[in-house]
């Protein structure tokens, strides 16, 4: 009988960790701490959970448990794990369809039933129930990237990084100042870079003046801090003004 919360032995854990360390992955794949499971690495991000769940875990578990007898509990748990991973992969795909929604629901139900059989004492969480409803939303709204919270979390990250020196007590003040700074910076990005060519309108009477040749090698350090596309845009704006 497997005990919930204590399935992997220390040896199996170290196998999983060594797999994380030794697997060759593309550079765009989110990296995962190699000492997974130790408190020292702190909380994992959502994307790290996705990577560790859909990439490393199946590889290691199949290697460790794939050759066990069919009636072994661990083999059954492996099957359940793989249904969960399949469900996650289907749900986070870049396209959606009726078939994919059905497939997702099927995998998710297999997973929950598997859990119920293996751990009769297990208390299901509200999240696991809501996961069953996710299938409907795949049909309602299409692929998840239009309605997940990743972009909003990124916005929060930006807000958290805005420097401030306010005391802890003044949170309401803090929040209103954060938002002002943020809106201000966003508007500035929008206006200053997208309308830069308008700033330097060739129609102005000064446009006829030419700059000396040595100034043509002027470096614009501020162009490096904005995104490449808008930087180019801004740069052309400036160049067409100064060097018509």
């Amino acid at each position, binding site marked *: 009988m497997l005990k919930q919360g204590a399935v992997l032995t220390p040896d199996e854990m170290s196998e999983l960790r060594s797999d994380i360390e030794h697997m060759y992955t593309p550079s765009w794949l989110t990296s995962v701490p190699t000492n997974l499971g130790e*408190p020292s690495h702190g*909380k994992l991000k959502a994307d790290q959970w996705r990577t560790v769940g859909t990439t490393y875990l199946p590889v290691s578990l199949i290697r460790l448990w794939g050759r066990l007898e069919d009636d072994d509990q661990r083999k059954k748990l492996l099957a359940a794990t793989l249904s969960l991973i399949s469900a996650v992969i289907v749900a986070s795909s870049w396209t959606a369809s009726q078939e994919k929604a059905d497939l997702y629901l099927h995998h998710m139900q297999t997973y929950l039933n598997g859990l119920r059989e293996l751990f009769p004492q297990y208390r299901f969480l509200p999240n696991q129930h809501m996961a069953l409803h996710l299938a409907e939303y795949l049909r309602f709204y*299409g*692929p998840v990237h239009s309605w997940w919270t990743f972009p909003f979390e990124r916005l929060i990250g930006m807000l958290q990084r805005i420097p401030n020196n306010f005391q*802890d007590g003044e*949170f309401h003040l803090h929040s*209103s100042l954060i938002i002002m700074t943020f809106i*201000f910076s966003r508007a500035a990005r929008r206006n200053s870079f997208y309308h830069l060519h308008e700033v330097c309108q060739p129609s102005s009477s000064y446009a006829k003046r030419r700059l000396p040749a040595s100034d043509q090698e002027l470096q614009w350090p501020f162009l490096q801090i904005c995104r490449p596309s808008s930087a180019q845009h801004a740069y052309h704006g400036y160049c067409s003004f100064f060097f018509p």
Partner: protein
Amino acid sequence: MLPLDHHFKPILENVDPVLQVTFFLVVTCQVLLGVSRRGCSFLLQMVQYVIHLTLLRLGPNLSQGDEKLLSGIPTDPRTTEKAFYLEDKKTIFAVCPNPDCHFNYKPTFHEGSPIPHYPTTCSHREFQGSPKCGTPLIKPRRVNGHIIHAPIKPFVAFSFKHWLGGILARSEFEKTMDKSWMPCKERPAPEMKDIFDGEVLRNFKGLDGQHFSAGGEEGRYVFSLCLDYFNPLGNKQAGKKKSIGLISMVCLNLPPEMRYKPENMFLFGIIPGPNEPPLACFNHYLHILIEELLEFWYSGVRFSRTSTCYYGRVVRCALVCVVSDLLAARKVNGFAAIGHKQMCAICHCTRQQQDGLNDSFASLGERRTGEEIRKSAQLYLDAENEKERKEIVTTTGIRWSELYRLPYFDPSRMVVVDCMHNLFLGLIKEHFEILGIRMDNKKCNETPALSINISMDGMSELNKNERKSVDKLIETLESPLNKELESQDGYDMYLKRLEKLHKQALKLFFESFKLKVNPTYTPINEKNLNKADFVHSILTWVSC
């Protein structure tokens, strides 16, 4: 009609390019590089000085034009901000500081004065006939020798109309947004690539009963709303816990690669901290936004000029989905909390007694409908006192939410289950816990080196804090510490740690195991032992 002409005015028209570049330099430093206002005014003065010195090379006397150029450089960076039209339209509301109220008040202005006025105390009544809240709203502040009454807890709300106007003023944006409805007009493709292929938007009806996109010359746009609470002090496990909320909206008509860029997202406001507003109090903040959305739905808003329509255009907007994690979704949509029996707002699955095999969470229940949820919410709203409300929530699991005022909003379909929180941070994380890969420090329980039992009789004489001390003592002693105690440093560390515990707890432990006083650390007073004596003997007992 909303005037948008300022978006089309060129910035710093007919101004000397030297000034243009100077203004740009300072604005970039201030906004993107985070230079303070003080730093910027220093920068401005230095630029002025550099130009002055350069001009002096041409001769000792400056021409009139050059004098004018030098005087055109401002000393205050706020002047440069203004030149770039960076201010978005906003209103500062006064929020009631009472943590159970959160009602907010719009400022009023006396004729020709920029100073906002707020009511002195909160006059909100939760129920008809119940007493007023009465919490003070404002505090005096001295500005330039005058006393101004500023809100104690301000909430900055940005205007959705003005933001949308800004988006529509940008070249190409409007065209791209109008084009996005194409997939809805074609036959359904088997593969859905974006939200417009989904069922909800394909069947989304406008006010006139036609498909929402069929507005002729009018602009028809759809939005998603997101609410998320976060800790402004960072996400450290051991750090302070404060919570402020972020309400933002995204225009779904923009293609996915554009819609989530921070400059294209609408940030409605940040709910002030330090804690989340309880239960239905969040509605007071949402109210401001819903008022604007209702106007966009019923009459539409006329913009005086957009990038494609020189003579203006009517725009109608709708909110089609609410994206947030499970906990925030409960609050924003008025559903009962997560521990409630009827926690699921999508189906009628009630949490039954803890029976692993029949757990209703592992299967789908009967589907709820939007009308049914609205009816229950109306019941909640009509309730006359707190007790009645509680009963209604217990039976239906639904509270009131301002979102229900939007006539097209279907709470049973438009509140999505967030994939990121639900699958990645929820199910995958939980599965790792089931497998036994623990991330949480506290849950890690190593095998105890020895087990200690203390009789209940002794425990019952202690008070609450002293009992905690006993638990802590046992926890420390049960972990394997033999090796650490061998060195003097390790011994001193544990000595210090245990000396912090209550004396009564140590005494109980000492007596229940019939320990003897350690001969190497002879007590000063044999009859009246102090804390250090107890700790020494306990540590000696453990290490042998």
